[in-house]
């Protein structure tokens, strides 16, 4: 079975032919396109390590069939930095020790970027914790993660204010 699929991934248009409809978006990224930044944790939609943005919204890529997302615009952790310049959320995770082993970090960062776009959390730590509850960290770096997200959110609010001033 040949299943043609057109995706824009990190700004690059990719024409792909799948030989099997069972391929998840996560496996397509990692195994076929060598975009290994996105991690496979539980592969059951429970840990959030596989979080990517699809058309600007964070989802679990392990529970998405690639073929069903024909035409989508996908942003992964591999595409958020500009050259050597880290994305502000990446920089904030480093500044606040928002990780230990780092395995969940790509998912945490993509989830945080998605959360900031959703605009629901602001810098209220309780709301940030709730809005990030789909990302588990077995090292327990949650305190640093919340601090990093708060700082990134505050930085974004500030730069928005500067732009509108």
């Amino acid at each position, binding site marked *: 079975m040949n299943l043609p699929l057109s995706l824009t991934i990190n700004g690059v248009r990719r024409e792909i032919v799948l030989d099997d409809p069972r391929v998840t978006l996560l496996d397509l990224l990692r195994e076929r396109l060598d975009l290994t930044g996105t991690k496979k944790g539980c592969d059951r939609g429970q840990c959030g390590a596989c979080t990517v943005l699809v058309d600007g*919204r964070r989802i679990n890529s392990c529970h998405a069939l690639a073929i069903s997302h024909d035409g989508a615009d996908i942003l992964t952790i591999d595409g958020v930095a500009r050259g050597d310049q880290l994305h502000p959320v990446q920089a904030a995770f480093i500044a606040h020790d928002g990780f230990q082993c780092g395995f969940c970090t790509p998912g945490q960062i993509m989830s945080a970027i998605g959360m900031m776009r959703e605009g629901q959390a602001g810098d209220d730590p309780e709301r940030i914790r709730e809005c990030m509850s789909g990302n588990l960290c077995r090292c327990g770096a949650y305190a640093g993660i919340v601090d990093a997200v708060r700082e990134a959110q505050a930085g974004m609010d500030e730069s928005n204010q500067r732009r509108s001033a």
Partner: protein
Amino acid sequence: MKPFDYVRPASVAEAVAAAAKPGAAYLAAGTNLLDLMKGGVSRPDRLVDVTHLDGLDRVERLADGGIRIGALVSNADLAHDADFAKAYPAVAEALLSGASAQLRNAATAGGNLLQRTRCAYFYDTASRCNKREAGSGCDARDGENRTHAVLGWSENCIATHPSDFCVPLVALDAIVEIEGRNGRREIALDELHRLPGATPERESALEPGDLIVAVRLPPAARGFAAHARYLKVRDRTSYAFAVVSAAAALRIENGKIAEARLALGGVAAKPWRARAAEDVLRNVAPTVDAFQEAAWRALTDAKPSGDNAFKIELARRIVVRALSLAAAGTPARIPALPASPFASTSGAIHA
């Protein structure tokens, strides 16, 4: 995962024809179905992908004052629709208390209704489960069953329906629009899910090929906007299914309850409408005494299905507390921890 054919229909009619064949299943976001397929619990021969169908992703305000939620509207889009949340606050709060942000972004309204139980024995293909394999037995009956049903269960199945969304919807008399081989029909949400009885493998009133195209709330559902809450007890603060939940909605006139709506989640194989409790709340003042009477009525028929007698008392307390919260008034903003009894803004006294 078992191999399957992938079909992407161009119209609802094509979808129904493709899905009516034996072994076919609809695919929407797949947040539950793919999990079931990876575990070998669901083994469809053909997936009919409805996510590219036009016209199913809209929320429409109807001329009669009702609202129509397309089957492909995501849980997140519906919950964050400010007009919707204002008119149906308990529904928005229930949606935001379910799953994680990633799953709510993907999961659809129709898929939420048709998600399967999270009974561990249903998921474990090494266990006996009458729902997964008719007639094989039920290992939950003598297993780890503290979260299982206390209402409407049978010796054949003690699983619960896990949806939060369905609980306020059934309280508000939601209607399900279905496209099938014989055209369009509609049924009350209360009639969509079946109790297990002797046939737990038959979970809903849907026939092969039936596609839920929309969920509708009738005009009267808006009348509860000022006094409507969803309250959900779970084993961790966020991202967990309900141990017990309740949706409570009141229409208060001149200091008395003109009409009450009450439904429970996590207690049965379907969202559990508690009509006997609603009846005792008509034309009485919204007092804790009245709410306690309602709670007793709501759980009159409850009985433990295993190590879960605690859920009956817990459900009574949740009912009293949800009704108390509803009587106090819908908050201007959904709490930071939606539906949580531990929300700093819950504002309720313990029942």
